[in-house]
Every structure is written in C-alpha cells, then in structure tokens.
C-alpha cells in the first residue's frame, strides 16, 4: 500500500477507486496537495489537509479524471 484511497472529514469526503484508476496522474497534477501517484495508481496523501484544500481544484480533479475514479463530496455540515 502506498497510502489511503478514501478519507472523510466532518465536511468532506475524497476517494480514488482503484477498480477504475489507471494512473494517468491528472488528479495529482491538479491537486498535488491531496493526490500523489505511485505504482501507476493515485493515492491520497496521508498528511493532506482535506478541509483546507482548494475545493474548486478538487472539483476539477473529479471532472478531469479520465477513468472517473475520483469522488469529491461536500457534506453540508450539521
């Protein structure tokens, strides 16, 4: 394992589905603070501060992933 593929905070959830990811690296280029590439797959950086990450960039990463492997959800906080 080269890191987590799913993380949830109080307000956000980001995941990479390894049944789909084919390692193009688009996500890591779009949001390097959150995604990294290793062994031809994308992983979440264990130390990433999800709540501080640029939400627009996360939406772009989700949109541009050619394998539709990235999910970014915002929970409307309670």
């Amino acid at each position, binding site marked *: 394992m080269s890191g987590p593929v799913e993380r949830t905070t109080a307000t956000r959830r980001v995941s990479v589905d390894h049944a789909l990811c084919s*390692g*193009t*690296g*688009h996500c890591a280029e779009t949001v390097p603070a959150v995604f990294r590439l290793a062994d031809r797959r994308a992983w979440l950086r264990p130390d990433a501060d999800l709540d501080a990450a640029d939400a627009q960039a996360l939406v772009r990463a989700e949109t*541009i992933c*050619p*394998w539709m492997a990235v999910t970014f959800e915002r929970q409307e906080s309670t």
Partner: protein
Amino acid sequence: MSEQPVPAFKPYEGKAAHPWEQLAADRARCPIVHSPELDSVQVTSYEAVKEIGRNHEAFSCTYSAAWPLEEPVPEELQVFTLADPPRHTRQRRLIVRALSASRINRMRPFTERTVNDLIDGLAARGGSFDLVTDFASPVSETHISELLGIPEADREYVLRTALLPESTGLANTEGLASPELEAWSDYLRETVRTRRAAGPGADDLTTTLCFAEENGDRFAEREIGLLILGLIAGNASTGAAIGNLVRALEQHPDQKTAYLGDIDGLTETLVEEGLRYDGPILGLYRRTLKEAELPGGHVSRPGERIYFSLGAANHDPEIFDRPDELRLDRDRKELPASMAFGYGVHHCIGMNLGRLQAEVALSTLYRRLPGLRLRPGFTPEQVPGPMFRSWTSLEMVHDGPVLPRTDRA
C-alpha cells in the same frame, strides 16, 4: 497582426520519415502559429498541447477531432472524440470499468497465447515476414474481437467495414446510405437485438453496452453501434504502435542491445519511452468554442480550428532532454507523462489494453526470434497526413530456430 512565419511542418508533401525536425523548427520559432497547409492554428509545445486537452470546455470535439467541419456533427452521431461532456461523460462512464487497468490485467494470459500463436505462425514462414500485416495488425484485431465478443465468422466483415471512413455515418448524414452502409447499419442493429435477447450474462463489452442503463433508460441501438465503431477505430492505433516501437528500437542499436540484455526489466520502459518517441497519433484537431488563453500567450478565438501535435509535445526539449533520441535510461519518475495517449477527458480509454498488447508483443518477439532485425536495405514508408504515425510495412528477418513459447511453464 504581425507577419507570422510559415511553418516548416508539411505533412501532405511526402511526409518526412522523422517530422521532429520540422516540428522542432516551428516550435522554436513560434509554438502556436497559423499553418496554411493545415488551414488551422498549429500547436507544438508540450504545455499548450496539454492545455488544449485540459480545457475541454473551450476546445470542442463536436466538429470532429479528425478534421473539424464547419458545423458540429449531428448530435445522434456524437460519440467519443466527436462528443463533448455531458454526452461524452455518459458514454465514457459505461466503458471505463471494462477497460480499467485492473480489469485489463486479467486479459494477460489471452494476450500471451495470442502473441505466441502468431509467432508460431511466423516461424512456419521461414526467416522473414512483414511485421505490420503478419503480426501487429492481427494482434490488435484479435484483441478487439475478443473484447467486443465479435463472432469468429463475422470478424473479417466487421473489422473491414468499421474502418471505412463512411461507416461512422459522417460522410452520409442525410441517411442516403449506399447498400453496403445500409447492410452495415442493419448488422449493428441486429447485433444489439440479439445480445439483448440473449440476456446480460456474457461478459463481453458489447453485452455490457447493450444492458447499460442511465436513469432507467437503455442506450439507443444507433449509439451503441457507433460506440462499437469508435472502439474498433481506436484500437487500430495499437497495430501502428507496435510497428513504431519495433522500428524505433531497430534504429537505436545501443538501446536494442540494452533491451535484449534485460527484456523482463525493460519492457514497460520500452513501451512508455517508445510511445513518447513515436506514438501512433501524431496530432489531432479541436475547434474553439469560447475564448481561451494558451500557454505562450496565444488567445484562441471562437471558431478557430486547432491542430495540436502530440508528437511535437513529446519532443519538446523543455520537458524531455535530448528528445529526438530513444533512451531507456530516462528517469521516468521525474518526468511528466508523455502525451501519447492524449490528455484530459478524452484520454485514450484503450490505454491499458494498448499497453498490454504492446508489452507482450515486443517482449515475446525479441525473446523468441533470435537475431530479429529489419531486412537490411529495406526503407519503410509512412502513411500520409498530419494525424497518424504508422509504417505501411516493416520487412523483418531473423535467424532460426524460433525459441519455445513463453506462455507455458
């Protein structure tokens, strides 16, 4: 507007065996320049090529990525690189799972058997063969037939007809089809009906497409037919890729020696670096829908037709040191991905299948055929035009005897 230089890249005038020099001259003078020969804005820098892929909202495929027409193609014909999101997104979502890296890896035993069978056949031909027609094309045709579950008896017909330019319906949007085209539409429609009647059990991609639903609706027969065509057309790049890889290796004797010394360790690298050096897609088109800036300062205006060269991007010295050399010792971890499979939402959906075929093809050829080389004195030729890099024929020779199959322990 200032006087712009006329680009050196002239892909219709007897295509250079290595267009990198022309493209390098253009990039060095002006990486984004109007080309009278292409009647388009020509883009040759890595960063600008990537930006065109990234910004699919400004740079549209709906006028066709093969030659943008004056009007978008009719919506019902828009598939893959004739489509933009959201129509494109919905099509792609259906298919990514079947072609993902993890799924395609399971096909490896099939690939090994197919490639070894073909090499057994080459052995029977004596010491020479045509790599393109006797090996690379059959490898790719066998794979797409397996993936789509095309019945054995129909294969020749389907593969031949699918690659006719008229088969997408673009040349014939009035619906005034010739008898052959009509027969073809009937065939596709019938295929969808038969698969639907047979039920969702089979695991070929045609069946998957037939039973896919979006908000409770199945896809139209016509759309499924066009998606199948798109997959067959896209897959044809693999045959060209295998030829380009062999030719690249043969042109770099020191790299070939290194490769033969460590086939296990270097095959993945050879395929990545070889597709950077000479991938089958030289360049593609888009049409600008809304004003957008490209790296280098060019502001693209709505209506502009853009030719962007993946080959030129892959030979950009800003990104790849000594770009015009095939080098297996590049530190790939430190380099950005090559543009051989494109960039962005249209990034090649067959990448994993293409890589698998190329890796097994190259490693098995060089392992089993001692002394494999281009026939001395043979000069290969390129297909014409700005879109493809593909050798029409590669005459190879080897010394016997052929070594045992690699797919049986």
